[in-house]
Structures are given as structure tokens and as C-alpha cells.
């Protein structure tokens, strides 16, 4: 270890380090797994994200008619991501979906852009604070971005969908990691998250059941081209023992999703309502599984 350090210091003193350690192919738009040679952890996270599946997704393959619908392809295999710009389709490694090079490499500077100030001998880097802003995601998540803007909240997409992992090494490759300090790391799993029960307020008012999304600062659920859904099931029990079940399918594509802080009204059929059992479930666009978000029983106060 010490010998390495000495060699290293020797190199620093006599040559421009950048030129010694630079790995040319990193600027030739390689596959994501090439970045894993150093950024192993980030790569493992990304591989669990939906961005990794954006091209391979069976749903996407089917709905794009085997990649035949040309206008569908660019956001699922982008060439370069720029804030608020719809990307163009990439020529190489489309199966990588939304990958490292697309999000970080810029033709203009021929370097890796990112949120940090780093010293990265293998490839040039450029600090770029756009990476911490919602606008970065807006070229593809266009509808969600519009909804988020209307919500006027402070938190960015990244705050919730690239949560901080605390300070960690950006690279795992020996010996390079020895020369770098741990830095702020953000989750490249891009978790979709799950609304908490308190994010959705539910109450009875007169003849109506009212739902309000008070916690998720975009539609619940939200989408551009996917078709995620919320299932609302209300079982109503009347004084005379009669029962009725109301079902609602709420989705962004049918324009029935729960907008942020905009109450959703469900009319309850007339009668002497005793109690209402409410269950709310969600389903992601890419999954068949329904998960429960909230379950509660409301009773009408006795007069």
C-alpha cells in the first residue's frame, strides 16, 4: 500500500496525472457495465431500477409493437439527457435503457457531468448543479413535472426518488478508491416509493366520501406513458342492513388520479349510512401486483 502511494506521489510530481490515468474508451459512450469497473455500487443500484428495465420491459416491448412505434423509443433509450428537453433516440446499446452515459456524459464538454466537485483521473468530470433539480427529470417525466410544479413544494424529484445514502465512496476499484474521500451518495435505485396512509386523507361529508392526496406532490398515481392505477373500494353498510359496494379505478391516463390537494368526491347512494369501509390499493404500470396503501372504517356519528 505504501509503495503504491509513493508511486502515486511520484507520478503526481512529475507528470500531469490526468493524462496517465485517463481511460479513453470511457468517453466513447460505453455500456453501463463499463462504469461498473469503478462505480460498482452505483451500478448495482441502477440495475434494480426501472431505468435499467426501460427498454427490456416486456410491457414496453409489447406496447411499442416490438419497438416498431418509433415515436415511443427516445425516452426509453435516450442519447443524452438535458434539463426539460425531450431526448433523442440513442444508436448504441439500447437494451441498457436509461443508462449512465445517457444521464451523465455530455457531448458539449466530453466529460461526465454530476452534482459534485470531484477529481476523477480516469475521465474528465464537470460539476453541474442541474443534477439536483427536478428539471433534470422533466424532459421524460413531462406530465409528472408539470404536476409537481403546480404543487409548489420545496422537495425535488431527487429528494424523494434518489434519496441520500449518506457519505460513501463513489468508486470501489482498487487502488483508486484509496485516493478519494467518501462523498454524498444518492440512491440510483430510483425507488418509486409508496404513499403513506397519512398521505391520503379520507372522510365522510354529507352524502360524499372525500379523498385528498395531501402527501405526494404530484398526481397519485402519476405517469407520462405508463398506466399505473389506484383502486378504491368502498363498502357501505346501511341502517336497514343493506350493503353496497362502490368501486373506482383512478388513473392518470383516464384523468381520474388524485391531484395534489384537490379533493376527490365520491357520491354515496342515498340511505341511512351506518358505516363505510374504505380500501385503497395501488398497482404500478409495470406490475400486476396490487398493494394496499390504506384501509379504514368510517362511521357516521349518531345524531
Amino acid at each position: 500500500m505504501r509503495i503504491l502511494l509513493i508511486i502515486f506521489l511520484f507520478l503526481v510530481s512529475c507528470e500531469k496525472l490526468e493524462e496517465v490515468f485517463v481511460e479513453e474508451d470511457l468517453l466513447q459512450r460505453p455500456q453501463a457495465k463499463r462504469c461498473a469497473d469503478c462505480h460498482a455500487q452505483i451500478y448495482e443500484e441502477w440495475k434494480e431500477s426501472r431505468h435499467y428495465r426501460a427498454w427490456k420491459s416486456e410491457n414496453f416491448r409489447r406496447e411499442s409493437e416490438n419497438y416498431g412505434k418509433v415515436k415511443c423509443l427516445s425516452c426509453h433509450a435516450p442519447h443524452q439527457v438535458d434539463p426539460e428537453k425531450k431526448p433523442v433516440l440513442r444508436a448504441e446499446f439500447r437494451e441498457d435503457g436509461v443508462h449512465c452515459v445517457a444521464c451523465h456524459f455530455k457531448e458539449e464538454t466530453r466529460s461526465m457531468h454530476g452534482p459534485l466537485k470531484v477529481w476523477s483521473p480516469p475521465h474528465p468530470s464537470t460539476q453541474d448543479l442541474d443534477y439536483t433539480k427536478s428539471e433534470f427529470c422533466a424532459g421524460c417525466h413531462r406530465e409528472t413535472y408539470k404536476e409537481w410544479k403546480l404543487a409548489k413544494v420545496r422537495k425535488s424529484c431527487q429528494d424523494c426518488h434518489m434519496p441520500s445514502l449518506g457519505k460513501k465512496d463513489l468508486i470501489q476499484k482498487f487502488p483508486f478508491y484509496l485516493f478519494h474521500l467518501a462523498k454524498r451518495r444518492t440512491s440510483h435505485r430510483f425507488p418509486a416509493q409508496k404513499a403513506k396512509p397519512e398521505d391520503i386523507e379520507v372522510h365522510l361529508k354529507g352524502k360524499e366520501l372525500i379523498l385528498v392526496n395531501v402527501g405526494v406532490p404530484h398526481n397519485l398515481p402519476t405517469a407520462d406513458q405508463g398506466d399505473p392505477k389506484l383502486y378504491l373500494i368502498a363498502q357501505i353498510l346501511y341502517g336497514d342492513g343493506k350493503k353496497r359496494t362502490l368501486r373506482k379505478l383512478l388513473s392518470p391516463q383516464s384523468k381520474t388520479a388524485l391531484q395534489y390537494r384537490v379533493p376527490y368526491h365520491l357520491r354515496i347512494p342515498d340511505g341511512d349510512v351506518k358505516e363505510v369501509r374504505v380500501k385503497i390499493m395501488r398497482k404500478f404500470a409495470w406490475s400486476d401486483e396490487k398493494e394496499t396503501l390504506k384501509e379504514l372504517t368510517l362511521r357516521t356519528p349518531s345524531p
Partner: protein
Amino acid sequence: MRYRALITALAVIAGVSFSAEKVILKKPPESLKKYYPPASKNYEFISAMHTMSTAFYGINLNINEGNWEGAKRWAQELKKTYLKVSKMVPEWKSYFKPQLADNLVKAVSSKNVDRVIGASKKLGQTCAKCHQDNEIAVKLVYHFPSFETIKIEDPVEFMEYKTGKYMEKLTNSMKALKIYLLQGEGDKAQEAGMNFVERARQLRSMCSKCHTNKLSEEVIVGKEFEKALNDLENLLSGDKPDRDRVFKLLGKVGASCTKCHNVHLIPQVVKEAFEK
């Protein structure tokens, strides 16, 4: 004068419009598949068509400018592509008359405008015959996306259905609403009507499977459609909904159904027939 005749003759040939007593829709042959996605991404067949059509115009343009050598090169290009295309789809072999392509090259070589017109017309007729028999069907099968692969989730049953089946459910709940109203069965009309409203609202979820621009959606299932559905829902929620008003609102909703059918239904029906 002569040149003018040439231009018109060639213009007719290079285009693909035709007039006819009947329009034929024949199922495209199996072997055409390999020139379209998913089998191929290069659209080899239609590219060859563009090459031939450009070559025809190349002959025309050069003769007009007195450049017979240039015209000859395009005639040779046309012949070469014509021969190539004649081998692409064996089922269509009999549409091609290679001799006529050769005659056109010879006519251009002779620098005789009348011969060029004659030879062009003859060759052009072989193009036109095949287009009349096949072009529309090919366009529908290979250029129009399919509704067959699209599923809509039924908001009443929470089950997914293909487009055709969904339309049936949607229509049946509309018919049930009308029938119960006419029979004076209020509760049943209300339930059927609510199902219809929910099903109609869910129609919009199909659009994003083919369209990436929300404006396309607005044109057909936009504000007016939403309003008609909301009004219908409110009307049905009250007791004893006014029958005439319900029918009037159904008419408004129906205008959107018709618009969407006008744009999408015919291609889909033809495609489906061929796919069966």
C-alpha cells in the same frame, strides 16, 4: 409539347393514386413480412418503391433538360430495382414484366421521346396493377398500429379486456341504461348508467399506448367529453333523472365515440380481419 406529354405520362406513373369501380383488399402474402418490423427494421420493400419512383422522375427530369445520359442512368437504376423487387415476394412474381423495364432502357438509349412515353406507360401499368390490388392492404397491415395488443382495465370489474371486448361492455351498459330508463326502472338505470360513465371515462387510458402528445387526446376525449360525462353522472345521482336530458347527454358523449371511430375503426377492422 412532346415534353409536356412526357411529364404528364410519367407523373401519373410515379404516383400511386388510381381510380376504380371497386377497391380490393387482399391479405398481403406471408413472404412480405420479412421486410417489415419486427422481422426487419429497414423497410426494404417500401424503400425499393421509393427508389423506383425517384428513378422514374430522374428519367423525366433529365430528358426535360436534354440530358439523355443522365436519363439513361436512371432507366438502368429503375430496371435493376424492378428486377430486384420482382424476386422479393415470390407470390407477386406474375405482376412483373422484366422485359418492359428493359424496353424502357432501350427507349431512353434511342433518345426517342415517343418511345420513352410508350415504354413508360407500359411499365407503369404493371406498377399500377399491383398497387390497385395490394397497396391499401399493405399500408393497413404494416403501417397502422394494432388495437389488438391493447388492453383496457374495466373499472367496474377490475379486469383487463382487449379493445373489441371492452367496446362491447361499454356499449352494453349504455344500452342497458336506455332500456331501463324506457321501462321506468330507476335503480337499475342508475347502476347501468354509472357503469357506462366509468367505462367511458376509462377510454382515455388507451390513447397513451399509441400517442405521445396529449393534444391528440384533447381533440377527441377532451373537455366537452369530460363535461358531458360529469353532467350525466350528476344527473343519474339524483332521484328520477330526466329521461330526455339523459338521452341528450348520451348524444354528446356519442359524438366523441364517433370521432374516434372515424379516425381509428376502419383500419382496425381491416387489420383484424387479416390477422384472423
